[in-house]
């Protein structure tokens, strides 16, 4: 295999002790990651999604060296993360949406200065990278504010900038858009797209906002109960998840539900408007042709399956 990020049967088992009465403790094992294999090429931009507790954060923690895998093989840029954590640190950037990697009591500017020295970033590069982040993430007015006074969205942008000052080859983002408003989300997405396109930074991101995935990632991996249940393109996810497309037709007048369109089913009628669904991997052409031939058609549109529905269905089928 020649991926930049390589996982081969990676596992993480947590031994959890629970109080079970006075002094007695119960031990049990949580298989947070249960034999995951995938490979991400250099420059890839991959979404890593799954329901709560699926094992996404645990995977990222192993990829950064925070946690040591209980089994399997793991390489990032040829480095075993938990063994050579500090060496790997120079080559990766990490953003935890849930907590900051910045210094709570310091202004952003001081945090960045410390990052510069820690990573030994050459002056020119530092200045160029910082200027760019400040411009694209709109940090100008925030540089002298202590991190603890920043709002969640402001802090997140500050964190993303901090993770990129040293030109990492890989960027891990664990829920980078959590709690952001629409404008901030758009900014962050645009920024990530540019970093990925211009620098060739490999990006792996987890999120519960599927719009992130739709707008950023051609490839998506779905994890559930510590296992990879899907790895492929977004469109394939539709087919796998049994997604359906919807044909919305406006007729000249109110008519009984259309029943003779091949492969389609009418699911809703409201006045002259009717909704017909059909499998996402079928062509719409024969259905449209049939309807246009037999009914007084005024207008029509086709709706792609809603990815959130697809995912929800997928999770539900697996009994989450």
């Amino acid at each position, binding site marked *: 295999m020649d991926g930049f990020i390589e996982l081969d049967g990676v596992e993480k088992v*947590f031994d959890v002790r629970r109080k079970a009465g006075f002094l007695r403790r119960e031990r049990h094992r949580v298989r947070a990651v249960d034999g995951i294999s995938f490979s991400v090429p250099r420059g890839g931009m991959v979404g890593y999604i799954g329901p709560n*507790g699926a094992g996404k*954060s645990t995977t990222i*923690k192993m990829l*950064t*060296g*925070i*946690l*040591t895998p209980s089994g399997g093989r793991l390489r990032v840029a040829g480095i075993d993360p938990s063994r050579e*954590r*500090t*060496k790997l*640190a*120079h080559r*990766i950037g*990490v953003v*935890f949406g*849930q*907590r*900051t*990697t910045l*210094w709570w*009591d*310091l202004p952003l500017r*001081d945090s960045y*200065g*410390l990052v510069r*020295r*820690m*990573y030994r970033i050459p002056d020119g590069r530092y200045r160029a990278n910082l200027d760019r982040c400040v411009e694209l993430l709109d940090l100008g007015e925030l540089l002298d504010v202590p991190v603890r006074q920043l709002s969640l969205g402001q802090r997140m942008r500050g964190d993303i900038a901090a993770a990129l000052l040293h030109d990492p080859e890989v960027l891990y983002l664990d829920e980078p858009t959590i709690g952001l408003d629409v404008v901030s989300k758009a900014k962050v997405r645009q920024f990530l797209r540019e970093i990925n396109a211009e620098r060739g930074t490999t990006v792996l991101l987890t999120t519960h906002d599927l719009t992130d995935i739709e707008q950023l990632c051609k490839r998506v991996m779905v994890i559930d109960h510590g296992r990879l249940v899907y790895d492929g393109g977004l469109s394939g996810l539709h087919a796998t998840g049994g997604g359906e497309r919807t044909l919305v037709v406006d007729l000249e007048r109110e008519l009984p539900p259309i029943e003779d369109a091949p492969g389609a089913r009418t699911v809703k009628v409201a006045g002259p408007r009717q909704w017909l669904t059909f499998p996402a991997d079928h062509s719409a052409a024969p259905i449209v042709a049939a309807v246009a031939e037999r009914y007084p058609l005024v207008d029509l549109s086709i709706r792609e399956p809603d990815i959130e529905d697809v995912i929800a269905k997928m999770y539900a089928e697996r009994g989450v």
Partner: protein
Amino acid sequence: MADRFPVAAGLRGYALVVAMWVRSTMAYRASFAMTTIGNFAASGLDFVAILLMFSHIDALGGFSLAEVALLYGATSCSLGLADLTLGSMDRIGRRVRDGTFDTLLVRPVPVLAQVAADRFALRRLGRIGQGALVLGWGVAHVDVAWTLPKGLFTVVMVVSGAAIFASVFIAGAAFQFWATEAAEVQNSFTYGGSTLLQYPPTVFATELVRGVTFVVPLAFVNWLPALRLLGRDNPLGLPGWVDFCGPFVALLMLTGAGLLWRVGLRSYRSTGS
């Protein structure tokens, strides 16, 4: 480069973080002055108590005021140095509990250095300052014919003492990987231990002195070397060479604490969120 030498990388990282905290402290000079004076005064209260005692008595356990001042100054300086360099390490328990420890692990600097330098508090110079004053006064007034070797011995005593306290700070921090509340125990050994060492060993029960010599060897911080300086007998009747073992004990304890830290770090398992 330096990353091939963990110690060098650690010291460099430590210096970077410390420099940043010092810069940010110095941005508020008035507040720095106030808190340092506060630290000076608070840690000096112990000596005021000793002074009050000596206004009623001439000797404590057979020790004169100047001799007690020497003991007091030595341990205060040692603890002050350790406290200044590593005193914020006891925050690590909280970091382990709330998961923010994760964020230290993704940076290219050894974690021990980051934890040690975290929130470096320059105001702790206050404790060192008052310890040094009392030590100086004690040195000037004890009945010792000072020579260069004796002076050097005193310096070595303070530095080894600081290293011994430092190892307790590190060991205390390491235990917090398993018991996030371990800071209390560590504090009782460092701050509590130092309070004990401010008084002559002769005022305590032999069992206690024995414990402080063999179990948690704090006696090497100041008791044993200072008794030698003052030309007094070892309270446990140990052979004379033991009084010179401070640096070795310090080295041993630092090594042990370092190993404990590594084991603790390896057992770190982050949190679920």
